[in-house]
């Protein structure tokens, strides 16, 4: 493979030899992971395998203890959320990351408010865009007021808001950490189809899920993790659901 200072230029993102320690506990152990152009990666593994840790590492809020990161083949430091934003990475976190006391619109634009040059917000425009995007990725029912406080939404509705936000701001890479855990069957199908559409438009995704059938529907490549390392990797045409299941359970 490439040298120490350069990654493959076909890859949007590459993490090489990543170790992440929480105190003395090693959550990621010399992990290698990459995201190519135009692909959906399925990230699988048992509870506590380190999937969310990897996702947070990629999105910058949980920087690695050691290891190298390459974006479009160039060595890059991603140690804060701003770094990953600059790299075009957007995340739907497993713990959702919404502020209950704020409205749907304000949650969607939190930290990325539409403002004039003095920093004053354009509420009208933000609300308009919010309404647009609430109808795009998932069409969750029951949301009819973009000013409603997020704390009053159902679990699935909250997840829909988090998805709408990430989908709206995504550029190169979308990370989805168990995005369908609270969604209905219909919404899940819709989101999975949407992830497939995004790929055609040039946005690669990483889908973390415990549902191997969902993963098999949309993913092009699978990475199975266990105890902080990669234990299995295969493209869709080289593997089967049975084989994947086996690796997830066995390790």
């Amino acid at each position, binding site marked *: 493979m490439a040298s120490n200072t350069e990654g493959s230029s076909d890859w949007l993102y590459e993490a090489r030899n990543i170790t992440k320690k929480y105190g003395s506990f090693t959550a990621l152990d010399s992990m290698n992971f990459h995201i190519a152009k135009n692909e959906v990666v399925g990230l699988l593994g048992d509870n506590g395998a380190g999937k969310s840790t990897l996702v947070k590492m990629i*999105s910058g*809020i949980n920087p690695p203890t050691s290891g190298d990161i390459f974006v479009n083949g160039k060595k890059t430091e991603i140690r*804060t*959320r*701003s770094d990953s*934003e600059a790299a075009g990475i957007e*995340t739907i*976190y497993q*713990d*959702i*990351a*919404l*502020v*209950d*006391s*704020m409205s749907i619109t*304000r949650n969607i*634009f*939190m*930290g*990325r*408010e539409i*403002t004039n040059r003095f*920093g*004053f*917000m354009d*509420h009208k425009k933000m*609300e308009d865009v919010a*309404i*647009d*995007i*609430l*109808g*795009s990725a998932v*069409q*969750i029912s029951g*949301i*009819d*007021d*973009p000013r409603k*406080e997020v*704390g*009053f939404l159902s679990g699935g509705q909250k997840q829909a808001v988090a998805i709408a936000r990430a989908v709206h701001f995504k550029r190169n890479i979308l990370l989805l950490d168990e995005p369908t855990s609270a969604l209905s069957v219909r919404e899940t199908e819709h989101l999975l189809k949407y992830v497939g559409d995004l790929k055609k438009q040039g946005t690669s995704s990483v889908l973390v899920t415990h549902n191997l059938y969902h993963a098999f529907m949309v993913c092009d490549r699978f990475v199975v993790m266990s105890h902080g390392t990669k234990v299995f990797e295969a493209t869709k045409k080289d593997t089967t659901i049975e084989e994947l299941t086996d690796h997830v359970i066995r390790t």
Partner: protein
Amino acid sequence: MSSGQSDHIRKAVAERNKRPLANKFMDWIRDNPEGGIFIMFIAAQAAAIIFGLLFPDQFRYLAPANITVVLKSIAPLGIMALGVGILMIAGEFDLSVGALYSFTAIVCATVSNNLLGDVGEAEASAVAPFIGMAVALGVGTLAGIVHAFVTLRFNIPSFITTLGAMLIWKGGTLLYHGARALRFKPTEPFATMFGGEVGVVHASMIWFLIFCVIFYYLLHHHKLGNHFYAVGGNRNAAVAIGIDPARTKYIAFAIAGFMATLSGIVAATRVGSIQPGGGLGMELQSIAACVIGGLALNGGRGSILGILFGTALVFTIQDVLLLLQAPAFYFEMFVGTMIVIAVIMNTAVRRAKA
């Protein structure tokens, strides 16, 4: 981009906008903690006015003297509460504002008096009080930044940091100045700008309202205000989305220190002297005003309107009790009761909405 779902939301929004004004107002009252406090404020005013009309001699609520005094003395608490409230929305407390209020007022008066800013001086200086004020505001803001630094650097509750700071500023005042009162009779134009009157409205009241407007735009319309809510409401979510909570909280602490100082200077200008212990207890009153105005103790919720109503209500009660010649501890008992009732009401409003 648009879809069936978006159209559905648009229709619902348009539907809601078409409601008659009266309905919108009723919904606002029902859905916002400020609504409840607004009703309570109106009720308290109405009761006081009725009793003032019925018993004009025993209860001089409507006497011009009382109205003048109210319009003169409400501002210091309100100005302090604005700073405390913004910090509370950002998820932190400042218990030291009362002690800081006295300390920085003394800094202001000392600098001003030393530069011949006292009206009694033979060659009195017109700029000296402004220099004194600038220095004091600098000290107050810096104090807020220090509170933020200690709180955030060592990751401890601001409740503890500022409890310590309260005692330190209180002791610092006595160490630096002693327990005697300090004269502060600034020269013009300072005296008129901060102690003058427009009709019955005292200058301090005008400053309070000016800062209400400034902070209204900051909190509700500027992105920084949005970040206060985000950081106070869910710190981890704010981090995950790329807002720097430390930076946001530094600014909020600095605002609290700045406003405590301004509050002290405005009060000193009105009274003409500073009592080193004068601000003690105001930290709790301003927190009370905020809580009564619907701000959540654990951050992320509240509005400038709420702080304004909260301050007005606390002050109305204080005034009524003064007029009834009730001993001072009545006021404290009343405020204590009000805080608990306010939190119960705010919680109930939230639960009813869920």
